[in-house]
């Protein structure tokens, strides 16, 4: 056991705050990431969410040091880290394709980061065993990665990233290559690891469910720009615009004329249709978009806030049916 003085304000993540200050990255004439400002607190789990090409992976690679910035700076407390090469940052990274070293057994993969740091053999063996036990792979330690299943490979990749006790863990769509069942399992696993180890984590995904389930805060990106930053509850319940709303499962977006608004209450109407809702952002034009989540619909014959539809496509989803009309 090493004695580590617990400084006031210094929490489990090993730093107080990581600050991204106007971080930008251009590729030729396209801007992949445009002046991202984000402060991550020690111990926090942040999800970067958006479709492919929104800049989320670019942001992660900039954090890791794998991509040089074309503008802005990154600060870890008072230390500027963006000029540092990746090997000097002490961040652990989990890649989408796992990137396990195919010629090294599981033990060699997990121990790699310790070996290059010159950690003595006995301590290395102990820490590797510990990490493998944490991801429940102790019995696979001597196999080559090619002999493991996708889920096992991903767990090796996670063990390899956390065994170096990183100041920050970066995960680039780590679950997207797994099948649906395994994905749910690993999601829980990642959450469990985060809660027990308290590692500050930045997690990139295009799956809003994953982001909402895992993160303390979600950063929604589009075309390299931040659309919204907030807790899962905030972005889910109060999306700031239709883009975020669409991403958060408001699958019904209806643009309708505004006939009256007072305070936050808005009435939208069209012949045969009249909706009353609450405004989420200021609007000026003659029309507004009503965003309605599928699970908020009730099938019935009521008059208020009712939409008459003819069913055209119906999909069976177990307890629900997806209906298009």
């Amino acid at each position, binding site marked *: 056991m090493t004695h580590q003085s617990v400084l006031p304000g210094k929490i489990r993540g090993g730093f107080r705050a990581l600050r991204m200050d106007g971080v930008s990255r251009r590729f030729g004439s396209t801007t992949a990431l445009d002046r991202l400002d984000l402060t991550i607190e020690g111990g926090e789990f942040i999800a970067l969410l958006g479709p492919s090409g929104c800049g989320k992976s670019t942001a992660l690679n900039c954090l890791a040091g794998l991509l040089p910035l074309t503008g802005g700076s990154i600060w870890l407390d008072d230390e500027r880290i963006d000029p540092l090469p990746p090997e000097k940052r002490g961040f652990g990274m989990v890649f989408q394709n796992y*990137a396990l070293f195919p010629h090294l057994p599981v033990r060699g993969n997990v121990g790699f980061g310790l070996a290059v740091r010159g950690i003595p053999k006995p301590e290395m063996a102990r820490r590797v065993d510990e990490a493998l036990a944490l991801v429940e792979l102790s019995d696979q330690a001597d196999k080559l990665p090619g002999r493991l299943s996708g889920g096992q490979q991903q767990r090796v990749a996670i063990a390899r990233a956390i065994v170096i006790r990183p100041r920050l863990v970066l995960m680039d769509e780590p679950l997207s290559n797994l099948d649906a069942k395994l994905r749910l399992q690993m999601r829980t696993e990642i959450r469990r690891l985060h809660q027990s180890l308290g590692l500050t984590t930045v997690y990139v995904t295009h799956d809003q469910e994953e982001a909402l389930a895992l993160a303390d805060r979600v950063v929604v990106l589009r075309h390299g720009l931040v659309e919204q930053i907030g807790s899962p509850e905030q972005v889910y319940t109060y999306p700031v615009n239709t883009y975020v709303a669409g991403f958060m499962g408001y699958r019904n977006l209806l643009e309708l004329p505004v006939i009256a608004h007072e305070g936050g209450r808005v009435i939208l109407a069209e012949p045969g249709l009249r909706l009353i809702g609450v405004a989420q952002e200021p609007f000026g034009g003659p029309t507004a978009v009503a965003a309605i989540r599928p699970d908020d619909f009730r099938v019935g014959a009521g008059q208020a806030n009712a939409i008459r539809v003819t069913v055209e496509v119906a999909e069976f989803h177990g307890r629900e049916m997806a209906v298009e009309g």
Partner: protein
Amino acid sequence: MAATGAARVVLRHRLAERGIDRVLLLLVPAVLVLVLLFLYPMLYGVGLSLQPRAGGGVLANYQAFFRDSYQSSTVWKTMRLALPAALVNVGASVPIAYRLRGRFRGRRPLTAILVLPVTLGTVLVADGLLRYLGPKGWFNRVLLDIGLVHEPIRLIYNYWGVLFSLLITGFPFAFLLVLSYMSGIDPTLERAAATLGAGPWQRVRHITLPLLTPGLATTFILAFVLAFSVFPSANLVGEPANETRVMAIAAYQAAFEKYDYSMAATIAVLMGVFELLVIVLVLLWCGRLYTGSTGGKGA
């Protein structure tokens, strides 16, 4: 009628289960070429080598070869050229291929320039070397002018001339092979190693090189075999009577100067044996290495 048709289908399915189907016919041309142009001449040559012109038992030619130091020294003279040439060509290819892997502007023209010597004939290269490395050539003139040497150094009509010629003609092959092996390694692996704290040299040493080594061994074998059969440059820029009297020259002299086809066949067979020896050693060493997937495309 219908019954025999069904039986035929059953038979065809049985055969297909064992991998026997019409696609097998695609192998016919290759098998024909192999038998007519390789297998038969090789066996004929081996047979010929066992029938010495002067008699004295089936192995008389082989005994004569090793007893006569003028003949047996050709083995060492050929190895002395082929081994360093193959080693240097493979070794020089690695850093260049490492830099040229992946996509960037100017990769194509650069690769083209590096591969260009393939299109030059050995004779052309030999002629160029005679002028360039000769006592009045550029190379010596530059050395003399900057005062590094006081008289021209001899680089032609000896060992060095042949070695340079082997390096020039052999490099493109080695480079192209190494480049394709290098491109087969997933670049994410080095990025992963970097995030784990490995510096540039550690990444090469622990990730790229181990994954590349089986490819390097294959490349070395091919480069070595190519250099081992050196003949024109050993004559043109070497000293074929002495220092660069390689096995191919000895075989040529036996066949076309002494008209002893049996002895020529013996030397040819021995060339094959010595090449095989080196190949087996390399493969044995290689068998202890990881040779599976390297993660990249085309791996």
